[in-house]
């Protein structure tokens, strides 16, 4: 793993009596990192602290080892940011808006730069239209354009796929992968839609109720959380579900099409009882294997536990 670009330590934020962040200590993976958590978990607050929009009540937040609050001006020269709900001046055309942004970043040939980046995000044909005529998805693309146009070292994206259709989401993720590969841009992506993140991220930090639940390379977390999880494909999954449902050694059980996923507490007791049950109920086993946990599973298990596993 490369050294982290983003790091927080004991980060706490109070809004009056409401505690939005609770001693949050996290870091990114240095490449493309995911930042996941349920709605209201504190993702946007964390990002706003990192961007220097709000001041931490306690603790530290830093990007490139620079304090997010006091060195915000230096940080903003080196990063791009896409907010959760982008709000851009509606009367501007996208091209004009990006020309202004290019000037703020002291970019050479702002017009050409604006045109090029709009084509990159698929808005080339709409570059002369006023932003207020854009759909939510187009505004999201424009948000990405203004975030990447200065070729920043790090791009922070807050719910970037929120307003995009499935094709738009795929395109965006491909774009992120490509930018990382071609320009070595680092990404920190906040989302609650995990299936997409899994395709691009190498690192994930999971947050719930303002506190870190777990973080690490996806592969490691996957192994950690799949330790006691089995995928069982059988001839009659409903019957097996019924038979296993209330067994004391089962921690969690769920069905996906013809397969059943079981997370167990006691391997010995499970093995002993499981095969007996199969024989008794005359259920045919088609597949029986230990799983590599998908991000969705990792998230589900870690957030459900709330506290990081020891």
């Amino acid at each position: 793993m490369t050294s982290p670009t983003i790091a927080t330590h004991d980060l706490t934020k109070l809004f009056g009596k409401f505690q939005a962040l609770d001693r949050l200590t996290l870091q990114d993976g240095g490449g493309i990192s995911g930042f996941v958590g349920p709605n209201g978990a504190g993702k946007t607050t964390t990002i706003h602290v990192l961007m220097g929009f709000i001041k931490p009540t306690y603790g530290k937040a830093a990007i490139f080892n620079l304090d997010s609050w006091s060195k915000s001006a230096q940080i903003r020269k080196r990063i791009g940011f896409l907010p959760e709900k982008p709000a851009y001046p509606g009367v501007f055309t996208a091209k004009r808006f990006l020309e202004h942004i290019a000037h703020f970043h002291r970019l050479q040939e702002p017009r050409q730069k604006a045109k090029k980046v709009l084509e990159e995000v698929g808005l080339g044909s709409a570059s002369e239209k006023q932003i207020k005529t854009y759909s939510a998805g187009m505004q999201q693309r424009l948000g990405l354009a203004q975030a990447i146009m200065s070729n920043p070292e790090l791009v922070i994206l807050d719910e970037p796929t929120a307003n995009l259709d499935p094709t738009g989401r795929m395109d965006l993720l491909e774009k992120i992968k490509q930018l990382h590969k071609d320009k070595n841009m680092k990404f920190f992506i906040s989302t609650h839609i995990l299936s997409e993140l899994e395709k691009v991220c190498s690192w994930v930090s999971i947050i719930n109720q303002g506190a870190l639940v777990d973080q690490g390379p996806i592969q490691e977390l996957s192994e950690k959380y799949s330790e006691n999880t089995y995928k069982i494909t059988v001839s009659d999954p409903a019957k097996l579900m019924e038979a296993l449902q209330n067994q004391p050694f089962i921690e969690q059980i769920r069905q996906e099409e013809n397969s059943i996923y079981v997370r167990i507490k006691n391997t010995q007791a499970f093995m002993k009882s499981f095969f007996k049950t199969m024989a008794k109920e005359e259920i045919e086993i088609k597949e029986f294997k230990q799983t590599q946990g998908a991000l969705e599973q990792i998230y589900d298990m870690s957030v459900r536990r709330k506290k990081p596993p020891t």
Partner: protein
Amino acid sequence: MKDFFRLVLWEIEENWRFPSLEIIAAILMYFSLTSRSFGIPKTYNQVLSYSVNVVYSFWLLMFEVVFIAVFFSRSVAEQIEKREILTLFAHPIKRTTVLLAKFLTNMLVILLVISASVIIYGLFIGLGPLHPVHYITILVAFLQLLFFSAISLACSVFSKSSWASIIIPIVTLFALMFIAPQDQANSYISPLGSIATVYRYLISQLIPIESYTFGTPPSTATFIGAVLFPVTISAFLLTLSFIYFRKMEVD
């Protein structure tokens, strides 16, 4: 400096592309001036006495304050309220430059609207386009504008609410007039009084005029007091607003 001019351009393009509100403001201000006129003035002194409408017109002041409040509310408070300001805060621009550009652009646009109304009114009553009365009037209007722009900016920045930042400056206007209802023309605290004092002093210094038109001209000390009152209050409010905006939390 580059960022400042770029932000001024941004502000003009964003808010003044179709200036319907400004055209309405100019028309209302013009009619608020002509409402006190009766017929075409015949003598030079009559001409000058009509020009006093500019500084004594309550409605002109009222419209001015309302439009200042609306413009600052739209440009500052609403942008904070709707988090549009984050678009600028996310890029390498100093917050103080953002606020300065917003403040000066809005104030100067309103000054242009007032100046246009005043000059058209002056031409209508027979003053030539280069008559010093116009420029004294515009200078005096600038002082008044600075005072209410500073109040409006402070309201927008501190309240972060588009409604509060419209209502508070209007209430302030009435409060100031209520505090100094007596002898408004000589009161520093009254917006009309302060502006009238400055106007009468400058007129008496620059234009020979018979005493009955404006009464006894104010002393230099009174004049300085009348200038310092809005300037000091404005400087204080602007300093507070800029300090707060620099470290303001937007979430």
